[in-house]
């Protein structure tokens, strides 16, 4: 029996040695059309730092984030920066955000933060902003234009009128399957901002859009969903190479809609069931997606992790770092013009743990 795993704590030295031994860093560069636009960055997301009381936090979630940061620091070649994909906190409180920021402060690279609903719905992102900056912004890096959106907004009625307290609003949104929740949206204001931001960008410039929720509609029950996804996609349509990277779903997903390639990232905290595992509702997992292995609950880090991203000729190649399982790689196939898993895309190569029900 492997009960000891859940109590396993690794000291800094132990972790570094273990990680060095297991991190197959092979950022092998393939042939690229325009190598000036080739670089790497790391992506950490959904740590859900959860306050118990006083100085106590849920150990499991702390460990997930600590491990991701420590491993990320070992990346060679060094990533140009790190993206934090949202849901740093579980209930958006100051102790949670502070504790999360403290763990993140061990990260040796510049971090760009994205807002998650668990960070937002207590004080509407006010304290988060003090720590990490604006909710919506853009930046350019080596010829690629990056846009960060707060995609987890919802209607004014739900946000401002429905709940007697801010805490209740947070609790209602924090329950993934809570029927009192509300669909995410980017909203008109940010869509207008996005149009303006993109006016000055050449249509041949590769775009990377970073959002917390998928900017596509997958499963409404669990808010694997953005209500105005089509409108946002329409704004991105004139650009030749668009990549959307999102967190929130705590699992590997990828898709292609028109010119837009979508890649999700994993959580450091816990994995979520794939939508098809809920038999009582309809869902639309992109057919392109080969799911990750069903998690083994006896290894608490299984199906959690972080990823490093290679930007190659304006497209995203994602390598998923799973501490208790084999690395997965979803790369952009220029022949089929789609993101594809490098090992499992062929249906004949799928394995039993990828069957979710």
């Amino acid at each position: 029996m492997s009960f000891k795993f859940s109590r396993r704590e690794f000291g800094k030295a132990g972790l570094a040695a273990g990680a060095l031994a297991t991190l197959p860093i092979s950022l092998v560069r393939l042939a690229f059309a325009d190598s000036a636009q080739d670089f790497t960055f790391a992506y950490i997301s959904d740590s859900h730092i959860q306050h118990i009381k006083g100085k106590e936090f849920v150990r499991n979630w702390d460990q997930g984030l600590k491990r991701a940061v420590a491993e990320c620091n070992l990346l060679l070649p060094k990533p140009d920066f790190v993206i934090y994909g949202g849901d740093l906190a579980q209930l958006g409180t100051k102790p949670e955000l502070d504790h999360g920021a403290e763990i993140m402060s061990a990260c040796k690279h510049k971090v760009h933060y994205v807002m998650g609903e668990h960070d937002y719905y207590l004080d509407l992102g006010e304290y988060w902003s003090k720590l990490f900056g604006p909710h919506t912004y853009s930046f350019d890096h080596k010829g690629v234009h990056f846009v960060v959106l707060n995609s987890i907004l919802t209607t004014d009625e739900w946000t401002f009128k429905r709940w007697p307290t801010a805490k209740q609003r947070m609790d209602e949104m924090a329950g993934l399957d809570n029927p009192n929740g509300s669909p995410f949206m980017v909203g008109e204001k940010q869509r207008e901002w996005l149009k303006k931001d993109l006016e000055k960008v050449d249509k041949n410039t590769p775009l990377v859009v970073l959002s917390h929720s998928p900017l596509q509609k997958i499963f409404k029950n669990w808010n694997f969903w953005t209500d105005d996804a089509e409108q946002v996609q329409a704004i991105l349509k004139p650009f030749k190479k668009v990549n959307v990277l999102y967190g929130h779903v705590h699992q590997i997903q990828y898709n292609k809609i028109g010119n837009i390639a979508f890649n999700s990232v994993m959580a450091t905290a816990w994995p979520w069931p794939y939508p098809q595992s809920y038999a009582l509702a309809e869902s639309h997992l992109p057919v392109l997606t080969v799911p990750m292995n069903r998690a083994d609950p006896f290894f608490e880090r299984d199906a959690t992790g972080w990823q490093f991203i290679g930007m190659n000729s304006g497209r995203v190649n994602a390598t998923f770092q799973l501490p208790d399982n084999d690395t997965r790689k979803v790369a952009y196939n220029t022949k089929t013009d789609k993101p594809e898993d490098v090992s499992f895309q062929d249906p004949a190569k799928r394995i039993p743990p990828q069957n979710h029900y």
Partner: protein
Amino acid sequence: MKWILASLMFAALSSQADTFSKEDVARWQGEYDSVAKYGRTLWTNSAKIKLGTNGVACAQCHPNGANSHPETYPKFQKQLGKVTQFWEMVNWCIRNPLQGKDLQPGSKEMTALIAYAVSERKGVKLEPGKH
């Protein structure tokens, strides 16, 4: 007196043992539904009784009970080295992610958790042993 009681009981038994009404069926369903509903509150950590010590809820990892697969039990769990029952895995998750203490298999709370988990799998066919 003794004779009257005995015959009354006999009459009562003979008229109830082999039949029940629509109202009975509705009432019994209602009993089940309310236990499943209590199970949902335990599952989401919104009941008064807490299953764990760290505030973590089953629903954080099993939204709508997904990935608990009650229809596959009993089944072999390689980490436990034997064919296990559903409640043993419930207790596994209570002890580990929730850092709590085992529930008794026949307790009100365990019954409620199972009632809730199966309610979310209505219509899914039984596949005992499936992995």
